[in-house]
């Protein structure tokens, strides 16, 4: 393992030698692709990201430890109650089971009774959400994200007091969120209160690494830009891998959907953040510093 670690760190050196202009272009291309995915999703489904029942309204009944094929369950519920339901399987180290989704207009109690007949020993977990409540959650979610973003931008500007690096930090955080949302679309993770919280959390995480890089490069005294960049890159790599490790173990060991969803969105965001901080932001900063020092 230590050898692997060294090899990766050697590979990171390639980034140091890269042309700063190229460093800016690649992350922007990824950002563009993410935007296209989100717009495509909007065109196809009418929303930028698939909304979970917390936003749409409806019900979900979770049965832990049930190992019957989802199609079979859906079929027998249809036979017994005449209600169309969507059944999904989930599994993790902690156990597996199924989630049964019922649309907003249908009678949850009928479905619940049918399920009880089928699996008398399983204790269900039920969530029922009214459609207007979803409206409120969506409104609150958008509000929280927009305000948090503005708050973050103000804090960043106050700390650095130089426009170009500050704007890059803010853009990186934005791009992290956009890429995370695009990946949510690809992997079918729905927007819920939990994932909104995770997107907000991303703001915190991405600012973390970006501030590290910006501070190290702008306040470096005795090193060259390249040296300072390489040493920050190593720190950043250590940071990201530890956090990813912690999140992955969370994702593997829990079957609670709230925790799984938060963990996966944070993983998406951190991957995006690695690119946006260490390639995009680093590229911009190197150009910025070169220009500034050229003037002096």
């Amino acid at each position, binding site marked *: 393992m*230590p050898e692997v670690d060294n090899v990766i760190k050697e590979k990171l050196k390639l980034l140091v030698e890269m042309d700063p202009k190229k460093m800016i272009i690649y992350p922007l291309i990824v950002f563009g692709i993410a935007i296209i995915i989100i717009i495509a999703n909007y065109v196809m489904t009418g929303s930028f990201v698939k909304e979970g029942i*917390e936003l749409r309204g409806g019900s979900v009944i979770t049965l832990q430890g049930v190992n019957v094929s989802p199609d079979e369950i859906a079929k027998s519920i249809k036979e017994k109650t005449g209600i169309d339901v969507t059944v999904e399987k989930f599994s993790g180290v*902690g*156990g597996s089971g199924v989630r049964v989704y019922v649309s907003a207009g249908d009678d949850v*109690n009928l479905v619940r009774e049918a399920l009880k007949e089928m699996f008398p020993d399983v*204790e269900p977990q*039920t*969530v*029922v959400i*009214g459609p*207007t*409540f979803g409206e*409120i*959650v969506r409104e*609150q979610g958008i509000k*929280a994200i927009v*305000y*948090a973003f503005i*708050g*973050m931008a*103000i*804090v*960043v500007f106050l*700390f650095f007091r130089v426009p170009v690096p500050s704007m890059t930090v803010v853009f990186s955080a934005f791009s992290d969120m956009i890429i995370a949302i695009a990946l949510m679309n690809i992997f079918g993770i729905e927007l819920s*209160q*939990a994932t*909104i*919280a995770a997107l*907000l*959390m991303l*703001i*915190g*995480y991405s*600012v*973390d*690494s970006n*501030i*590290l890089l910006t*501070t190290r490069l702008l306040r470096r*005294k*005795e*090193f060259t830009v390249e040296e300072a960049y390489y*040493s920050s890159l190593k*720190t950043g790599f*250590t*940071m990201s891998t*530890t*956090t990813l*490790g*912690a*999140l*992955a173990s*969370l994702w*593997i*060991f*829990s079957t*609670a959907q*709230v*925790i799984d969803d*938060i963990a996966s969105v944070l993983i998406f965001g951190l991957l995006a953040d690695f690119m946006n901080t260490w390639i995009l932001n680093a590229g911009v900063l190197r150009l910025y510093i070169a220009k500034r020092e050229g003037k002096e």
Partner: protein
Amino acid sequence: MKWRRILLNFRVIVLIFFLLISITALATRGLTFGLDISGGISITVKLEKPVDSQTMEQVKIALEQRLNTLGVKNIVVEPWGDQFVIVKVANVTEEEADQLIKTIERQGVFYAEFQGIIFATGKDILNVGSVSYDPQHSAWVVPFRLSKEAAEKFAQLALGKAGYPVDMFLDPPVNSTLVVSNRVYEAMLSKTFMLEGDMTLVERIEKAFGIKVVPYANVTPEEIAEIAKGSERIILLDVDGNLSKALKEMGFEVETRSMRSDEDVYDFIKRSLGLYGPYRVSEGLATGNPSTEVMISITAPKTDIQARQDAQVVSVVLRSGSLPVKLSIERIDYISPKLGENFKRQVLVAGIAALLVVGLIVFLHYRKIKIAIPVMFTSFSEVLIILGIAALIRWNLDLPSIAGIIAAIGTGVDQQIVITDELLGEEESRRRVKRSGVLRRMGRAFFIILASATTTIVAMSFLFKFFVGGLRGFAFTTILGVLVGIFITRPAYGEIAKVLIGERR
């Protein structure tokens, strides 16, 4: 020597101090878990429109009173903002959960009854004044206005019947059969409920609501079934469960209520029937002249807080037939207690795994156990202190709160790495360039930490402020974790790392 230098440092002492407090808090107070972990139901109720705090208080009392008749233990009604009320009950069965939901969905139904005749319902209560103290009669009074029809009907009924009982009901179990224990039956026939009237409570509720009362003595389930024919449901009061099973098998809807330790048999009967009163008819009301301005008075000294509360409840009950706002259920979360136990274990396992993974990865990067162990120790202390504070303030740890703790630990580890690398970098630079102070290096590390902590706190405050739902827990523990990090654990880690990494020289 090394240990001494670490332990005698002020920041490390602060950390140890907080660790001790947390361990004590956890040991003595323990953690309280949210419903999504301990099991239970949470029902989010939306009010038709935003209301002021006074109306919110009325809604809260009305809901409490109505839900209390169900006999479910420990119901918590929590107003949230100006438009939501959350009803939370721990450890309920699915059946109880259903009853709670049905009760909330139904509008409260108010009846005023005299001699077995309902003379007023919610719509006849036109206006309820505020509770006040009447020093002349030394009683707490609730004045209200009756409709003209109801007042006339009552005047006729009560002619010459001063001292007779008037009952008020909120959500009585209409059309049901009550099977009651002997002591309950005796109490129902007693003077306490009869006052100076000539009808017992049993007779009055049968006549008014078709509620049949059967004492449970020497009767078989079959005989009860015969009596209960035509009743919507059978309610067992203070009667053991075997009967309930037998009746359920015969296809009846059966509910069981038992007495709480904090109530006597009279309170138990009142609660089960949704009965408020009985109130004595005063001389003035028994003259046959209709009066629309009436009041209920509870004789008690002014200092009697219980009496004042009772009066408050009566005033809400009078209003609740026509609650100022309509309620609708917006969200129901039900989780069985067994399932929650499973989640608790999973989270514990995931947490320990995350800690070990962090330690392992840190070790792989630096290949120094001297760094990996303090990093793990610091993260572990952070968790302990967050949990300790949660125990101290009795914060309900739900799944989002736990996710928040984990998120905080994630940023915590990141920042410890920043500190470590700054210190290691200093070692290198010292060899190459002329000395640059440890303080300046640490200063830079803490600038980075402070900037990112501020942004996280700003971002999370918005979540905390704007969300109705459980995500406030996520925001709360994240903010708490970040604060514990920058003020307690990170400074201590900085000191420990300074000693351990600097040691090499």
